[in-house]
């Protein structure tokens, strides 16, 4: 054990007095997530060909696709962010964004029983005359 008379804590105490805090002032100062971090799935309705591979391979069954209606939906609260759908997507319509969705503060349930975080897209209706 160090001899207390030699004041072994003094250098550390002085260092702590003049060094930056180890923590961040969190709500005011938010750390950027690293590149490649897995956050939320983002979807591009323009390029999707509704092949349903993502829905079939999703381990959490969070994705619903309907080819007839041109419909694609995801439940963000069910999604486990494993990146499998992004890997299998042949049209590169799905991307993994590094930012997470904010926490839901209300638990509204949609008309078809959709949970909060439910997002859906429909195929854009073609312009008349095209």
């Amino acid at each position, binding site marked *: *054990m*160090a001899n207390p008379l030699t004041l072994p804590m003094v250098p550390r105490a002085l260092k702590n007095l003049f060094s930056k805090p*180890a923590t961040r002032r969190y709500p005011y100062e938010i750390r950027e*997530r*690293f*590149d*490649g*971090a*897995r956050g939320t799935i983002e979807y591009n309705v323009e390029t999707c060909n509704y092949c349903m591979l993502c829905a079939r*391979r999703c*381990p*959490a069954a969070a994705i619903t696709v309907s080819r007839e209606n041109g419909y694609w939906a995801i439940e963000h609260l069910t999604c*486990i*962010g*494993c*990146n499998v759908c992004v*890997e299998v997507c042949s049209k590169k319509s799905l991307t*993994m964004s590094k930012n997470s969705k904010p926490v839901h503060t209300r638990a509204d349930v949609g008309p078809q029983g959709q949970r909060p975080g439910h997002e859906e897209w429909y195929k854009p209706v073609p312009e008349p005359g095209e």
Partner: protein
Amino acid sequence: MKTTVVPFGPQHPVLPEPLVLDLILQDEKVVDAIPTIGYIHRGLEMMVERVEYTEMGFVVERICGICSFMHGMGYCVSLESIMGVEIPERAAWLRLIWAEISRIQSHLLWLGLGADAFGFENLFMHCWRMREEILDIFEKTTGGRIIHSVNRIGGVKRDMSDTELAAILVQLQDLGKEFKKTAHVFGTDPSINHRLGGVGILSMEDAAAVDCVGPMARASGLAVDTRLAGKNYYDRIEFEPMVETAGDCLARVVVRMREIEQSIDIIRQAIEKMPKGDDQALEIRPRGNPQGEVFTRLEQPRGEVLYYVKANGTKNLERFRARTPTFANIPAMIKLVKGSDLADVPNIILTIDPCISCTER
């Protein structure tokens, strides 16, 4: 003498997870302890019957938040040996590196929890600050801090570039130097010595009799380490199990502190020995469905883990079972608790590094 029963848990300040012990006391001495588990049973093993074997890896990873990488790796290694897949060399080295980083992470977390349990809150914060750097490395390289999802049957999904690996090594070695100061406090502080030294002594014979695993056994002088079997490229690494002979709570702390330094050295060796180049194969797609059964052993931060996988040629496995290190260490914990003072029980329970989520699945 009259006995008193004191329930310990499921909620207790030292326990991060619900373990229940009924302590039977005579005065201040514990004469018997009856463990109860089952508070967080989630039936993950049963899920194997309705989840496809390719997707089960993500479920297995979620057995525990601390050894999640090792659980995913164990499942994938089991399936690879059933299907006869030899994974690419670089993928195997990457798995080894991630496994050792997760060992450092787990030990730092435990040292912090231990410091908090014996009332040294400052040390707890230092350990967790260092753990945060490790979690940043995980987020940078795998994309997730706790759940990594990089293991696939047949390899890994992400690569680390050679420059990234070198930077990680430098970061880890700096962390190792910084950790030495914290380790010095653990080793020399008189209050820690007083609280942990000579408490809960498990002799080598007892440790062998109750089949201890991991740091618990190594602190009692048994040189058991599943990594010595040489699977998963550990045969290409030079290392020795960290063995202490005292067998008390302090020895278990010291073993884990030395293992952190050892893991940094293993990562250094792995980075030196792995094939260089960024455009190497990382994954081999296995064909067909698995057929057969296999036992896999891995050395998790807490000790030896055993996976039993039985496949029947369909896309759903027939049986999956994980025997986790905490389950193997509970008999030793009961042995230690008997005869100790009530005030020492929290420390004894914590030094086996209990992970109840793993145990109950």
